[in-house]
């Protein structure tokens, strides 16, 4: 029983990292209509940028996360302005191939700058240690990630639903021409939307540095579970992505503990089960 609760909590915090990638994917798809293969690479860049500030320069952890988000935001701006903008109206395969090329480029640049250096940053003092969960120590850092993930969900909801910027963005997403006809600068709005999605991924990446090793291949790896999350939760639905990320995180954590053989595969089995029962995804409208 203690094991079960322990694994549920661990799985939840893993799920939150998936959620932070899936959130950006969902926003980029929902607003810009683009499927960004390279979103995992932005997560990875967030990790590396945070490592520069936190591990190499030994700055404050919160400051490092914030700076990493700004840095990846700049990268996102460049990607949107010089690459994605050209393929908004193109077919899906062109978008996917373009963003696949970006994965290669980002991985290569990371390899050029950082080489294959391996970082082992320690958890910041205020977040280190454990709390007692049913008589067993549970790392505070995992709780921190879980809380930050949940907080991010509500922040995104508030920004998209409650602010002027979020509302214009949703308006532009549903009808670009009408939005620009009433004076919305759709082009810069899309730019900011992509920067926003990139910064969320960077937030996840930066937070993950004490528990997830940063390697140049991470970008191509984390995008797969993120796609699974988005597929289970219905593409374009933030609530669906949030719930699906928790399910996937918990499932892979439980599988790793109880059926070690299945740890990676459990993610795909859950996807198959969900899609057999609900082909449109958890939050999708039935066709």
């Amino acid at each position, binding site marked *: 029983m203690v094991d079960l609760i322990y694994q549920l909590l661990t799985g939840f915090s893993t799920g939150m990292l998936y959620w932070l990638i899936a959130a950006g994917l969902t926003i980029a798809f929902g607003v810009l209509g683009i499927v960004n293969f390279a979103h995992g690479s932005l997560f990875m860049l967030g990790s590396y940028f945070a490592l520069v500030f936190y591990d190499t320069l030994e700055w404050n952890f919160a400051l490092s996360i914030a700076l990493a988000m700004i840095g990846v935001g700049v990268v996102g701006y460049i990607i949107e302005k010089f690459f994605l903008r050209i393929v908004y109206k193109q077919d*899906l395969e062109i978008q996917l191939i373009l963003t696949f*090329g970006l994965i*290669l480029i980002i991985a290569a*640049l990371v390899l050029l700058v950082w080489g294959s250096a391996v970082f082992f940053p320690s958890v910041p003092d205020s977040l280190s240690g454990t709390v007692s969960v049913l008589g067993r120590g549970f790392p505070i850092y995992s709780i921190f990630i879980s809380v930050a993930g949940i907080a991010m969900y509500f922040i995104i909801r508030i920004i998209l639903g409650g602010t002027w910027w979020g509302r214009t963005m949703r308006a532009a997403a549903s009808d670009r021409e009408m939005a620009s006809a009433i004076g919305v600068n759709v082009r810069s709005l899309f730019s900011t939307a992509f920067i926003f999605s990139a910064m969320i991924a960077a937030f996840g990446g930066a937070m993950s540095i004490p528990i997830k090793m940063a390697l140049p291949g991470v970008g191509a790896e984390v995008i797969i579970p993120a796609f699974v999350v988005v*597929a289970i939760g219905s*593409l374009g639905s933030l609530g669906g992505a949030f719930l699906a990320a928790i399910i996937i995180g918990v499932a892979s954590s439980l599988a790793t503990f109880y059926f070690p*053989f299945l740890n990676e*595969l459990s993610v795909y089995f859950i996807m198959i089960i969900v899609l057999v029962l609900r082909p449109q995804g958890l939050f999708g409208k039935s066709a």
Partner: protein
Amino acid sequence: MNHVKEQFATKKIAFIFLMIGVAIAITLPVFVGGYVLHMTISILILALFSLSVNLLLGYTGLLSFGQAGFYVVGAYGCAKLLILFPNLPLLGIFGGMAMAIVASILLGFLCVRHTAIYFSMLTLALGMMIYSGIRKIKWLGGGYGLPDLPIGTLFGARMDLIANYYYFVIIVAGIAFYLFYRLLHSPLGLTFQAIRDAETRVAFTGISVRNHRLFCFAIAGAYAGLAGALRAVLYGSVYPLLGHWSTSAEPVIASLLGGMHTFAGPLVGAAVFYAIKDLIFRITDAAWQLPMGIMVVFLAMALRGGIVGSIQQRLLPWMRLRFGSEGSDLSGGSSA
């Protein structure tokens, strides 16, 4: 009368190209060494793999990013059959292909209910499932794969000798290409293209769109499996990375490069892509990702219709003039 003339001119051009190709293919081992033969075989394998992607993408309108899953099933099926029944390369290759067909039918049930981006994401995830699954199974060598396969002989010719294997691959690929051509011009192939262009109208004529997509997915799986099996014999080893999704990207890039609505596109695209890849690996060694990434990004942003598509639009009218008549499309499919 004019129509017959047009057809004749187009066929003449196609026939001349075909004969030149066959002549080069047969005499190639006389002129070049093992390296070029190896490269030619690799290009043909990539071309078969690209046909698989192109059947789905160019002719049925579905972008699969998980074809490497079936490629690796074909490769491992072939490898395991070779280990269990040494000296029977034909059994290995076609057995591996059959396993890929079975796998694609099973997973196809899940995928063909969806289209567009959903289809791409599902195929990607299911392909990665096969990849992770293979890495877990000790019987299949786990993360290391199966090295040193006993290739054996076929009709007395050793298949591990590159020149012998070259002729074998030429024949198999030739048959596969011919069957693909016939498929595209059969009622079945035309139905695929009709589904791509007007799904709802096809459904209204009483044709099951989903079953046809599944059928198409199975055929695509067969081509991917064949490519994987041929690769297993070429290198004499298989490893899980063959099923990783980055392997799936290669035939997609080759198809786009060559021209995805054209019959010859995958072959031309495979040759060009392989040449570029070879060049990049030669120059850069470890840092291959940067030039490759730049090439891929450039391809996505700049190239429309691919190489063959551009040739059809620009070069072919000129050639038809030379052959004395204006003709119809040389391509297997409808114009892009």
